[in-house]
C-alpha cells in the first residue's frame, strides 16, 4: 500500500510538472499581454516612448529573459542571481536574455506578408542583472505572480481568494442538493423499474442531460424572473450574488440589499439550474448501477431469507450500488474550485468560473493559467483520492 502510494505520488508530481510545462507553453504563445498596443503608441508623436522605456517594461514582465529561464522563474522562482558558494559568485556573466533585440522587418516572398523578426541583440541580460529584480516564489510554492489586466500588478492570488467563497457556496450547495435529491430518485426509479414513475422520470432525465446549460439557464430566467416580474407576481432576481440596492418583491415585501434573504434569493436560480442538470446525469447513473446490483445473487439471497424489502434495498443493494458513484462525486472536487463557467456567466455570479472567462477575454493569461493549473492539480489529486476511496468502500479491490 505505502509503496503504491509513493509511486502514485511520484507519478502525480510528474503529471503536474508536465501540465505546468503545457500551461506555460500556452502562456508564452499568448499574444496581446502587457506589450499589446505599445507599438502603436510608439508611432504616435504625443507619447515619445523610447527604447529604454520598452526595455524597462519588458524587464518588468520578464519578457527580456529566454524562455527556459522565464519558465524556471515562473515555476520555482529561481534563478534570482548568480550562484553564491562560500561568498564567491559563479556564472554571473551567463547570458540569460536580451533586453534590446534588433528587429528587422522584411517582406516574406512566399506569402507576400510583411514580417518582423529578431535578428540580433544590442544589449544582453546577464545572470547578475537578476539581483534585486522582483520575482514570484514560483507557482509550485503557490505564488501565481501578478495579474496583467484585471487587477494590474496585483497578485493573482488576491483575485482568486476574492472569488473562491462565492464559488464554494454555489458548487457546494449544488453538489449537496444533487446527492440528496439525485440518489433517492435514482434508487426509487431502479426499484420501481418499468413503473409509470420510472418511465416519466427517466425520459425527463434523458431530456435534462441533453439540455445545454446555457439555454436552460436563460429559460429559467425567463420563467422565474422576467415573466413573473412583468406579470406582477413574486419573482427571483436574475443575476449577481447580492443586490446593490433595496428592492420590493410582491408578497415578500422589501428586501434589504446584502441581507441574508437577499443572498438566499440570489442563490436560488443558479443553484437550481446546476442541480437540475446534475441530477439528470447522476440519477441515471445510480439507476443503472442499482439495476445491476438488484439482479445479483446476494440480493436474491437476502430476499430469500425473508428480510424486509427496505432492508434489502437500503443495506444490501444501495451500499454496493453506490460504489461506482464514488468516482463521480470525487470528481466534483476540481469543480468546487473552478466553478461553473456557463452558469456563472449567465447569472453574473462573481465566482471563479466567471473570473476565468473574464481573464481569457481580457488576455489576462497569468490569472487564467493559475486557475487552470490549480484545476489540473486538483484533478490529479481527485484521481488518487478516487482510487484510495475505492479500496475503502469495496475491500475486494486491492491497490498494487
Amino acid at each position: 500500500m505505502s509503496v503504491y502510494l509513493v509511486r502514485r505520488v511520484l507519478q502525480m508530481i510528474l503529471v503536474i510538472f508536465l501540465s505546468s510545462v503545457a500551461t506555460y507553453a500556452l502562456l508564452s504563445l499568448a499574444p496581446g499581454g502587457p506589450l499589446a498596443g505599445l507599438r502603436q503608441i510608439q508611432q504616435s508623436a504625443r507619447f515619445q516612448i523610447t527604447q529604454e522605456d520598452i526595455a524597462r517594461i519588458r524587464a518588468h514582465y520578464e519578457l527580456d529573459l529566454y524562455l527556459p529561464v522565464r519558465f524556471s522563474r515562473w515555476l520555482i522562482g529561481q534563478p534570482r542571481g548568480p550562484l553564491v558558494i562560500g561568498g564567491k559568485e559563479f556564472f554571473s556573466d551567463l547570458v540569460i536574455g536580451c533586453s534590446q533585440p534588433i528587429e528587422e522587418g522584411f517582406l516574406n516572398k512566399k506569402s507576400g506578408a510583411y514580417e518582423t523578426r529578431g535578428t540580433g541583440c544590442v544589449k544582453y541580460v546577464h545572470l547578475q542583472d537578476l539581483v534585486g529584480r522582483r520575482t514570484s516564489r514560483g507557482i509550485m510554492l503557490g505564488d501565481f505572480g501578478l495579474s496583467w489586466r484585471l487587477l494590474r500588478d496585483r497578485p493573482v492570488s488576491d483575485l482568486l481568494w476574492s472569488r473562491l467563497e462565492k464559488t464554494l457556496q454555489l458548487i457546494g450547495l449544488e453538489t449537496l442538493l444533487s446527492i440528496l435529491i439525485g440518489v433517492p430518485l435514482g434508487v426509487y426509479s431502479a426499484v420501481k423499474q418499468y413503473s409509470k414513475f420510472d418511465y416519466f422520470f427517466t425520459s425527463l432525465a434523458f431530456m435534462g442531460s441533453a439540455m445545454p446549460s446555457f439555454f436552460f439557464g436563460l429559460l429559467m430566467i425567463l420563467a422565474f424572473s422576467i415573466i413573473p416580474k412583468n406579470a406582477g407576481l413574486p419573482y427571483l432576481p436574475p443575476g449577481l450574488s447580492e443586490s446593490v440596492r433595496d428592492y420590493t418583491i410582491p408578497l415578500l415585501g422589501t428586501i434589504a440589499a446584502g441581507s441574508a434573504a437577499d443572498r438566499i434569493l440570489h442563490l436560488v436560480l443558479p443553484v437550481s439550474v446546476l442541480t437540475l442538470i446534475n441530477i439528470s446525469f447522476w440519477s441515471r447513473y445510480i439507476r443503472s448501477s442499482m439495476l445491476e446490483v438488484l439482479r445479483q445473487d446476494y440480493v436474491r439471497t437476502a430476499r430469500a431469507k425473508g428480510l424486509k424489502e427496505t432492508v434489502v434495498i437500503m443495506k444490501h443493494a444501495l451500499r454496493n450500488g453506490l460504489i461506482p458513484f464514488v468516482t463521480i462525486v470525487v470528481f466534483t472536487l476540481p469543480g468546487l474550485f473552478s466553478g461553473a463557467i456557463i452558469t456563472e456567466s449567465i447569472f453574473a455570479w462573481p465566482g471563479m468560473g466567471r473570473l476565468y472567462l473574464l481573464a481569457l477575454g481580457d488576455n489576462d493569461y497569468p490569472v487564467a493559467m493559475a486557475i487552470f493549473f490549480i484545476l489540473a492539480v486538483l484533478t490529479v489529486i481527485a484521481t488518487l483520492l478516487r482510487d484510495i476511496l475505492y479500496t475503502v468502500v469495496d475491500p475486494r479491490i486491492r491497490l498494487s
Partner: protein
Amino acid sequence: MATNTINQIAELSGDAITLEERTPFQIVMRRFRRHKLAMVALVVISVILSLTILAPYITPFDVQEINVGKYFVPFGTVDEATGRTHYLGTDNIGRDYFSRLIFAGRISLAVAFISVMISETIGIVVGSISGFYGKWLDAVLMRFVEFMLTIPTLPLLLIIASMLLANEALIPIPPVILNIIGKIMLLGPRDARSAVLIVLVLSGLGWMGSAQLMRGMILSLREQTFVEASRSLGASNIWIILRHMIPNALAPIIVSASLGLAGYVVAEAALAFLGFGIQDPVPTWGNMLAGTQTYMFDRPWLPLVPGLPIFICSLSFNYIGDGLRDALDPRLKL
C-alpha cells in the same frame, strides 16, 4: 402433372422453412425502427439537415442583409418593398431571423459533423495502435487519455480556443481546406478560418473517449479465434486491423459518434455563446443566442428562436444514439 404438384409442394415448404435472408443492415434497421423516439428524432434531424442544405434556396433574405429601421419586427411581417416575409421577425439591427437561423444551422451542424468524423478517425487510429501494439506505447497513450478525460472539458476547450483564435493569423491552414470548408458552410476564406480552428479544437479534445472505446474492443477482439486464424494464414498486422478489427469494433464507434454529434453541437454553441467561437457577423446558433441575452427582458420569446434548435438537435442526436445502441448491441453500455 404429378411431378409438377410435387415440385410446387417442395417450393412452398422450402419457402416456409428457410427464412427470408436479411443483411446485417436490414436487421439493424428493423430493430432501430422499434425505438419510436429514435425514429421521430431521425425524421426531425433529416428535416433540419435538408433545410440547412437547401439554405440558399429557401431563405428569403441574405444573412448579412440589414433592413434599416426594421428592428425586432414581429413574426411573419411582410417586407412591402420586395414582398418577402420575415417568418421569425428580425433582430436588433434588422437582419432576418429565419434566414440567419437556417444558415447558422448549416454552420453549426457542419462543424459538428466534420468534428465527429475527424475525432472518430483519430480515436480509431490511436485506439487501434494502443490496443494492438500494447507495451509502453499503450501505457503512455492511455495515461495521457485518462488524464485528459478527467480534466473538466470546458475550461480546457476555452483556453485552447482563445489561444488559437488570438493567434488566428499565425496558424498555417492549407487554402484547399479553407476552400472546402468555406464551400460546405458557405463562408468566405477568412470566416472559414475560424470555423476550421473551432473544428480543430473540438476534434482535438474529443477523440479520447473513442480511443478508449476502440482500445477496449481491440483488446477483446485480439483474443478471438478468427484473428488467430487470419494470422495463421499469414495476414499482416495492418491487414488484421483494417479488415478484421475495425469492422468488428464499428458498432460502439457508430453509437459514440452519434452521441458525439450531440456533444459537438452543444460544445460549439457553448463556445460561441461565451464569445470564444465563431464571431457575430457569421451566424451560429450559439452566438445568436448570446445576442438575444441583452434583449430578453423586453422580448421574452427571443432566446427560444436560436435556443430551441440547439436543444432539439442535441436531444435528437441523443435519441438516435440511444436507438442505435439498442439496435446494434443491446448489451452495450456507454
